[in-house]
Protein backbone atom coordinates (compact mmCIF):
# COMPACT_ATOMS: atom_id res chain seq x y z
CA UNK A 1 0.00 0.00 0.00
CA UNK A 2 2.84 2.30 0.94
CA UNK A 3 4.50 1.65 -2.41
CA UNK A 4 1.33 2.48 -4.23
CA UNK A 5 0.98 5.78 -2.40
CA UNK A 6 4.61 6.68 -2.94
CA UNK A 7 5.01 10.29 -3.94
CA UNK A 8 1.85 11.41 -2.16
CA UNK A 9 3.66 14.06 -0.18
CA UNK A 10 5.59 15.31 -3.17
CA UNK A 11 2.45 15.70 -5.26
CA UNK A 12 0.40 17.18 -2.43
CA UNK A 13 2.96 19.89 -1.72
CA UNK A 14 2.79 20.95 -5.36
CA UNK A 15 -0.97 21.36 -5.07
CA UNK A 16 -2.25 24.86 -5.64
CA UNK A 17 -5.64 26.31 -4.96
CA UNK A 18 -8.13 25.31 -2.27
CA UNK A 19 -10.29 23.90 -5.00
CA UNK A 20 -7.46 21.62 -6.05
CA UNK A 21 -6.82 20.51 -2.47
CA UNK A 22 -10.50 19.81 -1.93
CA UNK A 23 -10.71 17.82 -5.13
CA UNK A 24 -7.63 15.80 -4.22
CA UNK A 25 -8.85 15.03 -0.74
CA UNK A 26 -12.30 13.97 -1.86
CA UNK A 27 -11.04 11.87 -4.73
CA UNK A 28 -8.26 10.38 -2.62
CA UNK A 29 -10.64 9.36 0.13
CA UNK A 30 -13.11 7.83 -2.30
CA UNK A 31 -10.26 5.99 -3.96
CA UNK A 32 -8.97 4.48 -0.72
CA UNK A 33 -12.45 3.43 0.34
CA UNK A 34 -13.03 1.77 -2.99
CA UNK A 35 -9.70 -0.04 -2.68
CA UNK A 36 -10.60 -1.36 0.76
CA UNK A 37 -14.22 -2.33 0.29
CA UNK A 38 -15.00 -2.88 -3.34
CA UNK A 39 -13.90 -5.52 -5.83
CA UNK A 40 -13.04 -4.24 -9.25
CA UNK A 41 -15.52 -5.62 -11.70
CA UNK A 42 -15.14 -6.24 -15.37
CA UNK A 43 -12.15 -6.94 -17.53
CA UNK A 44 -10.22 -3.72 -18.16
CA UNK A 45 -8.95 -5.02 -21.49
CA UNK A 46 -12.55 -5.56 -22.64
CA UNK A 47 -13.46 -2.14 -21.30
CA UNK A 48 -10.58 -0.52 -23.15
CA UNK A 49 -11.49 -2.19 -26.43
CA UNK A 50 -15.13 -1.22 -25.94
CA UNK A 51 -14.08 2.40 -25.29
CA UNK A 52 -11.84 2.69 -28.30
CA UNK A 53 -13.06 0.07 -30.76
CA UNK A 54 -15.21 2.67 -32.54
CA UNK A 55 -12.03 4.67 -33.11
CA UNK A 56 -10.54 1.79 -35.04
CA UNK A 57 -8.35 0.46 -32.24
CA UNK A 58 -8.07 -3.31 -32.09
CA UNK A 59 -6.06 -5.65 -29.90
CA UNK A 60 -2.68 -5.82 -31.60
CA UNK A 61 -1.72 -8.87 -33.55
CA UNK A 62 1.97 -9.69 -33.42
CA UNK A 63 2.07 -11.02 -36.96
CA UNK A 64 0.55 -7.79 -38.22
CA UNK A 65 3.05 -5.77 -36.22
CA UNK A 66 5.94 -7.69 -37.76
CA UNK A 67 4.47 -7.23 -41.23
CA UNK A 68 4.06 -3.51 -40.62
CA UNK A 69 7.70 -3.21 -39.68
CA UNK A 70 8.66 -4.91 -42.93
CA UNK A 71 6.29 -2.70 -44.91
CA UNK A 72 7.82 0.40 -43.38
CA UNK A 73 11.06 -0.32 -45.26
CA UNK A 74 9.37 0.74 -48.52
CA UNK A 75 11.49 3.17 -50.55
CA UNK A 76 8.62 4.10 -52.91
CA UNK A 77 10.52 2.86 -55.95
CA UNK A 78 7.35 1.59 -57.66
CA UNK A 79 8.96 -1.56 -59.03
CA UNK A 80 6.23 -3.68 -57.43
CA UNK A 81 3.49 -1.79 -59.26
CA UNK A 82 5.39 -1.99 -62.53
CA UNK A 83 5.80 -5.74 -62.17
CA UNK A 84 2.17 -6.24 -61.11
CA UNK A 85 0.97 -4.31 -64.14
CA UNK A 86 3.30 -6.25 -66.41
CA UNK A 87 1.91 -9.59 -65.27
CA UNK A 88 -1.60 -8.27 -65.71
CA UNK A 89 -2.62 -7.93 -62.06
CA UNK A 90 -5.32 -5.45 -61.05
CA UNK A 91 -5.86 -5.60 -57.29
CA UNK A 92 -8.03 -2.90 -55.62
CA UNK A 93 -4.91 -1.23 -54.26
CA UNK A 94 -1.82 -1.60 -56.38
CA UNK A 95 1.13 -3.08 -54.49
CA UNK A 96 2.77 0.24 -53.73
CA UNK A 97 -0.52 1.68 -52.46
CA UNK A 98 -1.09 -1.42 -50.36
CA UNK A 99 2.34 -1.21 -48.75
CA UNK A 100 1.79 2.47 -47.99
CA UNK A 101 -1.72 1.90 -46.62
CA UNK A 102 -1.01 -0.96 -44.27
CA UNK A 103 -0.66 0.21 -40.66
CA UNK A 104 -0.90 3.83 -41.82
CA UNK A 105 -4.54 3.90 -42.72
CA UNK A 106 -5.93 0.95 -40.82
CA UNK A 107 -7.44 2.77 -37.84
CA UNK A 108 -8.91 5.36 -40.21
CA UNK A 109 -10.49 2.68 -42.37
CA UNK A 110 -11.88 0.85 -39.37
CA UNK A 111 -13.18 3.99 -37.70
CA UNK A 112 -15.06 5.04 -40.80
CA UNK A 113 -16.34 1.54 -41.43
CA UNK A 114 -14.56 1.37 -44.77
CA UNK A 115 -12.41 -1.71 -44.34
CA UNK A 116 -14.86 -3.64 -46.48
CA UNK A 117 -14.02 -1.42 -49.48
CA UNK A 118 -10.67 -3.14 -49.71
CA UNK A 119 -12.21 -6.59 -49.77
CA UNK A 120 -14.66 -5.86 -52.56
CA UNK A 121 -14.02 -6.48 -56.21
CA UNK A 122 -11.05 -8.22 -57.76
CA UNK A 123 -8.57 -9.59 -55.28
CA UNK A 124 -4.82 -9.71 -55.43
CA UNK A 125 -4.03 -13.05 -57.07
CA UNK A 126 -1.24 -13.78 -54.64
CA UNK A 127 1.32 -14.49 -57.37
CA UNK A 128 3.91 -12.49 -55.41
CA UNK A 129 5.61 -11.17 -58.55
CA UNK A 130 5.72 -7.86 -56.66
CA UNK A 131 7.81 -9.18 -53.75
CA UNK A 132 10.33 -10.68 -56.14
CA UNK A 133 11.29 -7.22 -57.38
CA UNK A 134 11.11 -5.35 -54.08
CA UNK A 135 14.53 -3.93 -53.11
CA UNK A 136 13.34 -3.73 -49.52
CA UNK A 137 12.29 -7.39 -49.40
CA UNK A 138 8.74 -6.64 -48.35
CA UNK A 139 6.36 -9.64 -48.53
CA UNK A 140 3.78 -7.68 -50.47
CA UNK A 141 1.31 -10.48 -51.14
CA UNK A 142 0.99 -10.93 -47.38
CA UNK A 143 0.34 -7.21 -47.05
CA UNK A 144 -2.47 -7.49 -49.59
CA UNK A 145 -3.90 -10.46 -47.69
CA UNK A 146 -3.87 -8.57 -44.44
CA UNK A 147 -5.65 -5.56 -45.91
CA UNK A 148 -8.26 -7.78 -47.43
CA UNK A 149 -8.84 -9.44 -44.06
CA UNK A 150 -9.17 -6.15 -42.16
CA UNK A 151 -12.28 -5.77 -40.08
Amino acid at each position, binding site marked *: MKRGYRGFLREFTRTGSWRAISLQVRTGAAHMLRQLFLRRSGDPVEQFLAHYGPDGVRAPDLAARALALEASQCVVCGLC*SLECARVGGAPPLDPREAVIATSRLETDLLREGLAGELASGAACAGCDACSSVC*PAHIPIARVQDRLRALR
Partner: protein
Amino acid sequence: MTIAVVGGGLAGAVATLALAERGAEVVQIAGPPGASALAAGAFDLAAASPGVPWLAARDALRGNALSALERLALLLWEAPSHPYARMFGRDAAAAASAARAGIAALSRWLAPHGAALQGDFAASALLACSPGTLRPVDFATPGPAGGDLSACAEIALIDAPGLAGYDARFTARGLAAELAALGLAQKPVRIIQNVWPEGLLDAQPASVAARLDAPAAGEALARALRGCGGAGCVVLAPPVLGIARTQALVAQLAEAAGCAVAEVLSFPPYALAGYRFERALRAAVRASGARVIDGRVRALHAGQHGASHELAIETRTGAQQLAARALVLATGRFTGGGLAPSDGEVREPLLGLPLHDAEGRRIDGIPAHRSVRKGYATWQPLYTAGVRVDPQLRPLAPRGEPAAERVFCAGELIGGFDPARERTGLGVALLTGLAAAASAAQALQ
Protein backbone atom coordinates in the same frame (compact mmCIF):
# COMPACT_ATOMS: atom_id res chain seq x y z
CA MET B 1 36.94 -23.60 -60.26
CA THR B 2 33.71 -21.69 -59.76
CA ILE B 3 33.67 -17.93 -59.70
CA ALA B 4 30.69 -16.51 -57.83
CA VAL B 5 29.29 -13.09 -58.71
CA VAL B 6 27.08 -11.60 -56.02
CA GLY B 7 24.71 -9.00 -57.43
CA GLY B 8 22.21 -8.76 -60.25
CA GLY B 9 22.54 -5.11 -61.25
CA LEU B 10 24.65 -3.72 -64.07
CA ALA B 11 28.02 -4.43 -62.42
CA GLY B 12 27.10 -7.98 -61.48
CA ALA B 13 25.55 -8.73 -64.86
CA VAL B 14 28.57 -7.36 -66.73
CA ALA B 15 30.99 -9.37 -64.59
CA THR B 16 28.93 -12.52 -65.14
CA LEU B 17 28.64 -11.98 -68.88
CA ALA B 18 32.36 -11.25 -69.22
CA LEU B 19 33.29 -14.37 -67.29
CA ALA B 20 30.84 -16.52 -69.22
CA GLU B 21 32.27 -15.20 -72.48
CA ARG B 22 35.73 -16.25 -71.34
CA GLY B 23 34.43 -19.73 -70.70
CA ALA B 24 34.82 -19.47 -66.92
CA GLU B 25 32.55 -21.45 -64.63
CA VAL B 26 30.50 -18.61 -63.23
CA VAL B 27 27.51 -18.58 -60.90
CA GLN B 28 25.57 -15.36 -60.34
CA ILE B 29 23.57 -14.88 -57.16
CA ALA B 30 20.96 -12.24 -57.89
CA GLY B 31 18.34 -10.98 -55.47
CA PRO B 32 15.71 -8.28 -55.98
CA PRO B 33 16.81 -5.27 -58.05
CA GLY B 34 18.72 -2.31 -56.69
CA ALA B 35 19.80 1.00 -58.16
CA SER B 36 20.15 -0.26 -61.76
CA ALA B 37 16.40 -0.90 -62.00
CA LEU B 38 15.62 2.67 -60.96
CA ALA B 39 17.72 4.34 -63.62
CA ALA B 40 16.07 6.94 -65.81
CA GLY B 41 17.51 5.49 -68.99
CA ALA B 42 20.44 7.87 -69.26
CA PHE B 43 23.84 6.22 -69.18
CA ASP B 44 26.84 8.35 -68.40
CA LEU B 45 30.48 7.47 -68.18
CA ALA B 46 31.60 10.76 -66.72
CA ALA B 47 28.83 13.32 -66.70
CA ALA B 48 30.17 16.03 -64.48
CA SER B 49 33.34 16.00 -62.50
CA PRO B 50 33.01 17.25 -58.93
CA GLY B 51 34.59 20.60 -59.50
CA VAL B 52 32.84 21.36 -62.74
CA PRO B 53 29.08 21.62 -62.28
CA TRP B 54 27.17 20.91 -65.41
CA LEU B 55 29.80 22.24 -67.70
CA ALA B 56 28.79 19.59 -70.16
CA ALA B 57 25.31 21.00 -70.78
CA ARG B 58 26.26 24.57 -71.45
CA ASP B 59 29.37 23.81 -73.40
CA ALA B 60 27.78 21.19 -75.59
CA LEU B 61 25.48 23.80 -76.95
CA ARG B 62 28.13 26.39 -77.60
CA GLY B 63 30.22 23.95 -79.52
CA ASN B 64 32.90 23.64 -76.86
CA ALA B 65 31.80 20.17 -76.09
CA LEU B 66 33.97 18.01 -73.97
CA SER B 67 33.47 14.56 -75.35
CA ALA B 68 32.75 11.68 -73.02
CA LEU B 69 36.35 10.53 -73.18
CA GLU B 70 37.66 14.01 -72.50
CA ARG B 71 35.43 14.26 -69.44
CA LEU B 72 36.66 10.85 -68.35
CA ALA B 73 40.24 12.05 -68.62
CA LEU B 74 39.37 15.17 -66.60
CA LEU B 75 37.85 13.02 -63.89
CA LEU B 76 41.01 10.96 -63.59
CA TRP B 77 42.88 14.13 -62.69
CA GLU B 78 40.24 15.75 -60.49
CA ALA B 79 39.05 12.78 -58.46
CA PRO B 80 41.93 10.53 -57.38
CA SER B 81 39.64 8.54 -55.09
CA HIS B 82 37.22 7.72 -57.89
CA PRO B 83 37.18 4.07 -59.05
CA TYR B 84 38.27 5.22 -62.51
CA ALA B 85 41.38 6.77 -61.02
CA ARG B 86 41.98 3.67 -58.90
CA MET B 87 41.95 1.52 -62.01
CA PHE B 88 43.70 3.75 -64.53
CA GLY B 89 45.67 6.25 -62.45
CA ARG B 90 46.04 9.19 -64.83
CA ASP B 91 46.30 7.05 -67.92
CA ALA B 92 43.53 8.59 -70.02
CA ALA B 93 44.35 6.36 -72.96
CA ALA B 94 43.87 3.19 -70.93
CA ALA B 95 40.58 4.54 -69.54
CA ALA B 96 39.37 5.45 -73.01
CA SER B 97 40.28 2.06 -74.36
CA ALA B 98 38.43 0.34 -71.52
CA ALA B 99 35.41 2.56 -72.07
CA ARG B 100 35.25 1.75 -75.76
CA ALA B 101 35.64 -1.96 -75.10
CA GLY B 102 33.02 -1.78 -72.37
CA ILE B 103 30.39 -0.08 -74.44
CA ALA B 104 31.05 -2.45 -77.32
CA ALA B 105 30.73 -5.47 -75.05
CA LEU B 106 27.55 -4.21 -73.43
CA SER B 107 26.00 -3.58 -76.83
CA ARG B 108 26.96 -7.04 -77.98
CA TRP B 109 25.31 -8.59 -74.95
CA LEU B 110 22.18 -6.49 -74.90
CA ALA B 111 21.45 -6.16 -78.61
CA PRO B 112 19.75 -9.58 -78.90
CA HIS B 113 17.39 -8.43 -76.13
CA GLY B 114 16.50 -5.17 -77.77
CA ALA B 115 18.29 -3.14 -75.13
CA ALA B 116 21.54 -2.02 -76.71
CA LEU B 117 22.61 1.42 -75.61
CA GLN B 118 22.54 4.13 -78.22
CA GLY B 119 24.87 7.05 -78.46
CA ASP B 120 28.51 7.62 -79.20
CA PHE B 121 31.68 8.95 -77.70
CA ALA B 122 31.85 11.95 -79.95
CA ALA B 123 28.90 13.96 -78.76
CA SER B 124 26.26 13.82 -76.08
CA ALA B 125 22.55 13.95 -76.73
CA LEU B 126 20.25 16.39 -74.98
CA LEU B 127 17.33 14.42 -73.59
CA ALA B 128 14.17 15.68 -71.91
CA CYS B 129 13.08 14.57 -68.45
CA SER B 130 9.40 14.27 -67.62
CA PRO B 131 9.17 17.67 -65.87
CA GLY B 132 10.67 19.27 -68.97
CA THR B 133 14.21 19.70 -67.70
CA LEU B 134 17.05 18.79 -70.03
CA ARG B 135 19.91 16.44 -69.48
CA PRO B 136 22.98 15.83 -71.62
CA VAL B 137 23.57 12.13 -71.93
CA ASP B 138 26.33 10.05 -73.51
CA PHE B 139 24.38 6.84 -74.02
CA ALA B 140 20.75 5.96 -73.50
CA THR B 141 18.54 2.90 -73.45
CA PRO B 142 16.23 2.35 -76.45
CA GLY B 143 13.13 4.03 -75.01
CA PRO B 144 14.53 7.52 -74.49
CA ALA B 145 17.51 7.23 -76.82
CA GLY B 146 16.09 8.86 -79.93
CA GLY B 147 14.98 12.00 -78.12
CA ASP B 148 18.02 14.19 -78.76
CA LEU B 149 16.75 17.76 -78.82
CA SER B 150 20.02 19.55 -79.49
CA ALA B 151 19.66 19.75 -83.25
CA CYS B 152 15.95 19.33 -83.77
CA ALA B 153 13.79 21.97 -85.43
CA GLU B 154 10.62 21.25 -83.53
CA ILE B 155 9.38 19.24 -80.55
CA ALA B 156 6.03 17.44 -80.37
CA LEU B 157 4.74 15.94 -77.14
CA ILE B 158 2.20 13.15 -77.10
CA ASP B 159 -0.60 13.96 -74.68
CA ALA B 160 -1.78 11.15 -72.37
CA PRO B 161 -4.80 12.36 -70.36
CA GLY B 162 -5.07 10.76 -66.94
CA LEU B 163 -1.65 9.08 -66.99
CA ALA B 164 0.07 9.35 -63.63
CA GLY B 165 3.32 11.28 -63.41
CA TYR B 166 3.21 12.75 -66.90
CA ASP B 167 1.49 15.70 -68.49
CA ALA B 168 2.49 16.88 -71.94
CA ARG B 169 1.73 20.51 -71.13
CA PHE B 170 3.94 20.38 -68.06
CA THR B 171 6.81 18.96 -70.05
CA ALA B 172 6.28 21.58 -72.74
CA ARG B 173 6.40 24.40 -70.21
CA GLY B 174 9.57 23.02 -68.69
CA LEU B 175 11.25 22.57 -72.06
CA ALA B 176 10.56 26.14 -73.10
CA ALA B 177 12.29 27.43 -69.98
CA GLU B 178 15.25 25.04 -70.17
CA LEU B 179 15.96 25.82 -73.81
CA ALA B 180 15.88 29.51 -72.99
CA ALA B 181 18.17 29.06 -70.01
CA LEU B 182 20.68 27.17 -72.12
CA GLY B 183 20.71 29.90 -74.70
CA LEU B 184 19.16 27.78 -77.39
CA ALA B 185 16.81 29.29 -79.90
CA GLN B 186 13.24 28.63 -78.94
CA LYS B 187 12.01 25.60 -80.80
CA PRO B 188 8.29 25.35 -81.39
CA VAL B 189 6.74 22.86 -79.00
CA ARG B 190 3.36 21.38 -79.86
CA ILE B 191 1.10 18.81 -78.27
CA ILE B 192 -0.21 15.81 -80.21
CA GLN B 193 -3.63 14.81 -78.98
CA ASN B 194 -6.03 11.93 -79.42
CA VAL B 195 -3.60 9.25 -80.51
CA TRP B 196 -4.50 6.59 -78.01
CA PRO B 197 -6.59 3.70 -79.31
CA GLU B 198 -9.56 2.72 -77.21
CA GLY B 199 -8.73 0.89 -74.01
CA LEU B 200 -5.00 1.43 -74.17
CA LEU B 201 -4.52 4.34 -71.81
CA ASP B 202 -5.05 4.33 -68.06
CA ALA B 203 -3.42 5.87 -65.01
CA GLN B 204 -0.61 3.34 -64.55
CA PRO B 205 2.27 3.68 -67.06
CA ALA B 206 3.34 0.06 -66.66
CA SER B 207 -0.13 -1.20 -67.65
CA VAL B 208 -0.03 0.91 -70.78
CA ALA B 209 3.49 -0.28 -71.54
CA ALA B 210 2.50 -3.92 -71.06
CA ARG B 211 -0.41 -3.46 -73.47
CA LEU B 212 1.87 -1.87 -76.05
CA ASP B 213 3.98 -5.01 -76.13
CA ALA B 214 1.19 -6.56 -78.17
CA PRO B 215 1.94 -6.01 -81.87
CA ALA B 216 -1.67 -5.06 -82.64
CA ALA B 217 -1.62 -2.31 -80.04
CA GLY B 218 1.70 -1.02 -81.34
CA GLU B 219 0.33 -0.93 -84.86
CA ALA B 220 -2.76 0.95 -83.75
CA LEU B 221 -0.64 3.57 -82.05
CA ALA B 222 1.63 3.80 -85.08
CA ARG B 223 -1.39 4.36 -87.33
CA ALA B 224 -2.56 7.17 -85.06
CA LEU B 225 0.86 8.80 -85.23
CA ARG B 226 1.14 8.60 -89.00
CA GLY B 227 2.40 11.87 -90.34
CA CYS B 228 2.38 13.54 -86.91
CA GLY B 229 6.09 14.26 -87.11
CA GLY B 230 7.93 16.11 -89.80
CA ALA B 231 11.40 17.01 -90.96
CA GLY B 232 13.65 17.77 -88.03
CA CYS B 233 10.91 17.01 -85.50
CA VAL B 234 11.36 14.95 -82.37
CA VAL B 235 8.21 13.34 -80.95
CA LEU B 236 8.36 12.76 -77.20
CA ALA B 237 6.16 10.24 -75.44
CA PRO B 238 5.44 9.30 -71.83
CA PRO B 239 7.37 6.29 -70.42
CA VAL B 240 4.94 3.72 -71.83
CA LEU B 241 6.53 2.43 -75.03
CA GLY B 242 6.46 -1.25 -74.21
CA ILE B 243 8.41 -3.42 -71.80
CA ALA B 244 9.68 -6.37 -73.82
CA ARG B 245 9.83 -4.94 -77.34
CA THR B 246 10.57 -1.27 -76.84
CA GLN B 247 13.24 -1.00 -79.51
CA ALA B 248 11.01 -2.48 -82.20
CA LEU B 249 8.04 -0.40 -81.12
CA VAL B 250 10.01 2.84 -81.14
CA ALA B 251 11.28 2.06 -84.64
CA GLN B 252 7.74 1.35 -85.79
CA LEU B 253 6.43 4.61 -84.33
CA ALA B 254 9.31 6.61 -85.78
CA GLU B 255 8.65 5.18 -89.20
CA ALA B 256 5.00 6.10 -88.95
CA ALA B 257 5.59 9.58 -87.59
CA GLY B 258 8.32 10.32 -90.09
CA CYS B 259 10.80 11.46 -87.46
CA ALA B 260 12.48 10.41 -84.23
CA VAL B 261 10.16 9.17 -81.47
CA ALA B 262 11.39 8.71 -77.90
CA GLU B 263 10.25 8.59 -74.31
CA VAL B 264 11.03 11.30 -71.81
CA LEU B 265 13.44 10.28 -69.06
CA SER B 266 11.37 9.34 -66.05
CA PHE B 267 12.04 8.63 -62.40
CA PRO B 268 10.73 6.41 -59.61
CA PRO B 269 7.97 5.36 -59.17
CA TYR B 270 7.67 5.34 -62.97
CA ALA B 271 11.25 4.47 -63.89
CA LEU B 272 10.29 2.18 -66.75
CA ALA B 273 13.59 2.53 -68.56
CA GLY B 274 15.51 1.19 -65.59
CA TYR B 275 12.99 -1.58 -65.07
CA ARG B 276 13.40 -2.69 -68.68
CA PHE B 277 17.18 -2.40 -68.51
CA GLU B 278 17.34 -4.68 -65.50
CA ARG B 279 15.09 -7.23 -67.20
CA ALA B 280 17.24 -7.14 -70.32
CA LEU B 281 20.37 -7.69 -68.22
CA ARG B 282 18.79 -10.72 -66.60
CA ALA B 283 17.73 -12.08 -69.96
CA ALA B 284 21.24 -11.60 -71.32
CA VAL B 285 22.79 -13.39 -68.35
CA ARG B 286 20.37 -16.30 -68.73
CA ALA B 287 21.15 -16.51 -72.44
CA SER B 288 24.89 -16.61 -71.77
CA GLY B 289 24.62 -20.00 -70.14
CA ALA B 290 25.89 -18.77 -66.78
CA ARG B 291 24.17 -20.38 -63.84
CA VAL B 292 21.94 -17.99 -61.90
CA ILE B 293 20.74 -18.50 -58.35
CA ASP B 294 17.73 -16.35 -57.52
CA GLY B 295 18.39 -15.46 -53.93
CA ARG B 296 20.32 -13.48 -51.33
CA VAL B 297 23.65 -14.28 -49.79
CA ARG B 298 23.03 -14.61 -46.07
CA ALA B 299 26.56 -15.32 -44.96
CA LEU B 300 29.94 -15.36 -46.60
CA HIS B 301 33.02 -17.06 -45.28
CA ALA B 302 36.10 -15.98 -47.16
CA GLY B 303 38.52 -18.85 -47.63
CA GLN B 304 42.16 -18.23 -46.71
CA HIS B 305 45.42 -19.73 -47.96
CA GLY B 306 43.82 -21.00 -51.12
CA ALA B 307 40.66 -22.45 -49.59
CA SER B 308 37.32 -21.84 -51.30
CA HIS B 309 34.89 -19.17 -50.25
CA GLU B 310 31.69 -20.49 -48.70
CA LEU B 311 28.42 -18.75 -49.45
CA ALA B 312 25.18 -19.45 -47.58
CA ILE B 313 22.37 -18.46 -49.91
CA GLU B 314 18.69 -18.05 -49.11
CA THR B 315 16.29 -18.68 -51.98
CA ARG B 316 12.52 -18.86 -52.19
CA THR B 317 12.69 -22.62 -52.07
CA GLY B 318 15.16 -22.91 -49.21
CA ALA B 319 18.78 -22.51 -48.24
CA GLN B 320 21.72 -23.36 -50.49
CA GLN B 321 25.45 -23.59 -50.03
CA LEU B 322 27.94 -22.62 -52.68
CA ALA B 323 31.68 -22.95 -52.74
CA ALA B 324 33.61 -20.63 -55.03
CA ARG B 325 37.31 -20.22 -55.73
CA ALA B 326 36.96 -16.54 -56.53
CA LEU B 327 34.32 -13.96 -55.78
CA VAL B 328 33.08 -10.76 -57.39
CA LEU B 329 31.07 -8.60 -55.01
CA ALA B 330 28.71 -6.32 -56.90
CA THR B 331 26.17 -5.85 -54.17
CA GLY B 332 25.56 -2.14 -54.67
CA ARG B 333 25.19 0.55 -52.02
CA PHE B 334 22.22 1.31 -49.83
CA THR B 335 19.41 0.68 -52.27
CA GLY B 336 20.89 -2.62 -53.36
CA GLY B 337 21.87 -3.61 -49.85
CA GLY B 338 25.63 -3.78 -50.42
CA LEU B 339 25.97 -1.27 -47.63
CA ALA B 340 23.46 -1.64 -44.86
CA PRO B 341 22.64 0.32 -41.73
CA SER B 342 23.06 -1.82 -38.65
CA ASP B 343 22.26 -0.44 -35.19
CA GLY B 344 22.42 3.05 -36.57
CA GLU B 345 25.84 2.56 -38.12
CA VAL B 346 26.72 1.77 -41.70
CA ARG B 347 28.37 -1.56 -42.51
CA GLU B 348 29.26 -3.85 -45.36
CA PRO B 349 27.27 -6.89 -44.23
CA LEU B 350 28.97 -9.79 -46.02
CA LEU B 351 32.65 -9.44 -45.16
CA GLY B 352 32.57 -6.48 -42.80
CA LEU B 353 34.85 -4.60 -45.20
CA PRO B 354 35.97 -1.16 -44.00
CA LEU B 355 34.17 1.70 -45.72
CA HIS B 356 35.69 5.04 -46.68
CA ASP B 357 34.35 8.22 -48.14
CA ALA B 358 35.93 10.07 -51.06
CA GLU B 359 38.27 11.91 -48.70
CA GLY B 360 39.48 8.73 -47.07
CA ARG B 361 37.49 9.02 -43.84
CA ARG B 362 36.25 5.82 -42.23
CA ILE B 363 32.46 5.67 -42.47
CA ASP B 364 31.60 2.25 -41.10
CA GLY B 365 31.03 2.16 -37.38
CA ILE B 366 29.76 5.74 -37.38
CA PRO B 367 26.09 6.71 -37.13
CA ALA B 368 24.84 7.68 -40.56
CA HIS B 369 23.70 11.14 -39.48
CA ARG B 370 27.26 12.04 -38.53
CA SER B 371 28.43 11.43 -42.07
CA VAL B 372 26.09 13.91 -43.73
CA ARG B 373 26.26 17.67 -43.93
CA LYS B 374 23.84 20.55 -44.00
CA GLY B 375 22.97 21.76 -47.47
CA TYR B 376 21.47 19.54 -50.11
CA ALA B 377 23.83 20.18 -52.99
CA THR B 378 27.05 19.98 -50.99
CA TRP B 379 29.01 16.82 -51.06
CA GLN B 380 27.90 14.24 -48.54
CA PRO B 381 30.56 11.90 -47.16
CA LEU B 382 27.99 9.18 -46.54
CA TYR B 383 26.96 9.10 -50.18
CA THR B 384 30.49 8.69 -51.44
CA ALA B 385 31.14 5.85 -49.01
CA GLY B 386 32.05 2.37 -50.07
CA VAL B 387 34.80 -0.18 -50.14
CA ARG B 388 38.31 1.02 -50.97
CA VAL B 389 39.99 -0.98 -53.72
CA ASP B 390 43.39 -1.43 -55.33
CA PRO B 391 43.92 -1.16 -59.10
CA GLN B 392 42.84 -4.81 -59.51
CA LEU B 393 39.67 -4.03 -57.56
CA ARG B 394 40.66 -6.07 -54.53
CA PRO B 395 38.95 -4.68 -51.41
CA LEU B 396 41.41 -3.16 -48.97
CA ALA B 397 41.58 -3.60 -45.22
CA PRO B 398 42.17 -0.55 -42.97
CA ARG B 399 45.94 -0.53 -43.37
CA GLY B 400 45.84 -0.88 -47.13
CA GLU B 401 46.48 -4.58 -47.54
CA PRO B 402 43.94 -6.75 -49.40
CA ALA B 403 41.10 -7.65 -47.09
CA ALA B 404 40.60 -11.10 -48.54
CA GLU B 405 42.11 -13.40 -51.14
CA ARG B 406 40.51 -13.85 -54.54
CA VAL B 407 37.72 -11.33 -53.82
CA PHE B 408 37.05 -8.41 -56.16
CA CYS B 409 34.56 -5.56 -56.04
CA ALA B 410 32.50 -3.92 -58.74
CA GLY B 411 29.88 -1.22 -59.06
CA GLU B 412 28.54 1.13 -56.40
CA LEU B 413 29.90 -1.06 -53.63
CA ILE B 414 33.18 0.65 -54.42
CA GLY B 415 33.49 3.99 -52.66
CA GLY B 416 35.10 7.25 -53.64
CA PHE B 417 32.34 8.68 -55.82
CA ASP B 418 28.80 9.99 -55.55
CA PRO B 419 26.67 8.39 -58.27
CA ALA B 420 23.79 10.85 -57.86
CA ARG B 421 25.79 14.05 -57.89
CA GLU B 422 28.40 13.00 -60.41
CA ARG B 423 26.22 10.81 -62.60
CA THR B 424 28.99 8.32 -63.16
CA GLY B 425 27.19 5.41 -61.53
CA LEU B 426 26.42 3.30 -64.55
CA GLY B 427 29.79 3.97 -66.15
CA VAL B 428 31.52 2.79 -63.01
CA ALA B 429 29.37 -0.35 -62.94
CA LEU B 430 30.35 -1.18 -66.50
CA LEU B 431 34.08 -0.58 -66.26
CA THR B 432 34.57 -2.08 -62.82
CA GLY B 433 32.37 -5.05 -63.69
CA LEU B 434 34.62 -5.87 -66.62
CA ALA B 435 37.80 -5.25 -64.68
CA ALA B 436 36.64 -7.34 -61.72
CA ALA B 437 35.79 -10.20 -64.06
CA ALA B 438 39.24 -9.99 -65.61
CA SER B 439 40.92 -9.91 -62.20
CA ALA B 440 38.85 -12.84 -60.94
CA ALA B 441 39.66 -14.93 -63.99
CA GLN B 442 43.32 -14.00 -63.60
CA ALA B 443 43.30 -15.04 -59.95
CA LEU B 444 42.39 -18.58 -60.88
CA GLN B 445 45.28 -19.05 -63.27
